[in-house]
C-alpha cells in the first residue's frame, strides 16, 4: 500500500515539475516591431 502512495506522490511531483517547466531566461523580452524597424548606423554620413 505504501508503495502505491509513494508511486502516486512521485507521479504527482513529476507532473508538477513538468507543468512548471519554463524558460529560465531573464533577458529583456523582444518584439517583432524591434526587429522590423531596426535601423543601426555606425557612422554619420
Amino acid at each position: 500500500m505504501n508503495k502505491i502512495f509513494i508511486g502516486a506522490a512521485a507521479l504527482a511531483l513529476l507532473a508538477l515539475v513538468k507543468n512548471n517547466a519554463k524558460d529560465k531566461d531573464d533577458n529583456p523580452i523582444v518584439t517583432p516591431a524591434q526587429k522590423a524597424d531596426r535601423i543601426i548606423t555606425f557612422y554619420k554620413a
Partner: protein
Amino acid sequence: MTPRVFYSGAALAQNKAKLDAIGKKYFREIKQAETLTNVPGALILSVIFTESAGNPSVVSYVGAAGLMQVMPQTANDVIYFENKSGRLTAGELAILKKYLGTRINGPLKQKYLSHKIKENNYSGNVVVKADMLKPEFNILIGAMYLGLLIDQHREATGLRLDKALLRYAQGYFFKPAQGNVEQVLDHVKGKSTEAYSYVLKVLGKNGLLETQSTLV
C-alpha cells in the same frame, strides 16, 4: 564605439583587404541576412572576420561551427526564441526549412528552452554541425542571433552593441556588467582577455566597423 585599440595602424590595410575578400565571397549570403534580419552587413562581416576569418569549416573545441561560430544548440535556441516572440519572418523560415526540412518543427513546437519533444527526438535540439558549416544557414542564424542580442540591449542611453557582442562571444546567458561602454570594458578586461579583445576588434579605434566605413 570605444576609443580603445586592438588593431594597430599597421594592421589596417591587411584587415581591409581581408574584409573585402570575405565580403565579396559571401556577398549574397550577407546581403540576404541583412535584408531579412535588419542587422547591418558591416556588423555581420565583422563577426565573420573575428570568429572564423572567413573559413566556413572552422569548428571550435566547444563545438561552435562555421563562419559565425555558432553552436548547433544555440542555433536551435535562436530559432525557438525568434519564433516564440513572433519575430520569425516568412523569408527566414523559408531558408531555415531549406536546410532543416521537417526538423524545423523541433524549435517551432518547443514550449520552452531545451524542451525535449518528439519533433527533436527528445534531445532539445535539431541542428547539427553539418548545418552550421553551410554558409547561407550559418550567416542567417548568426545574424538572427546578433539581432536578438541587439534588441535585448536597447537601453535608455541607446543601443549597446558592446553588450550584445560580449554575449555573442561569451554565450547567451552571459551577463555584462552595468554601466557605460568603458565601465563594461573595464569589468570584462579583468575576467576575459578574449572577450575584451573581441569587442575592441569590432568596436574599437582601428576596429573592423571603422575599417569598413572607409571601404566605399
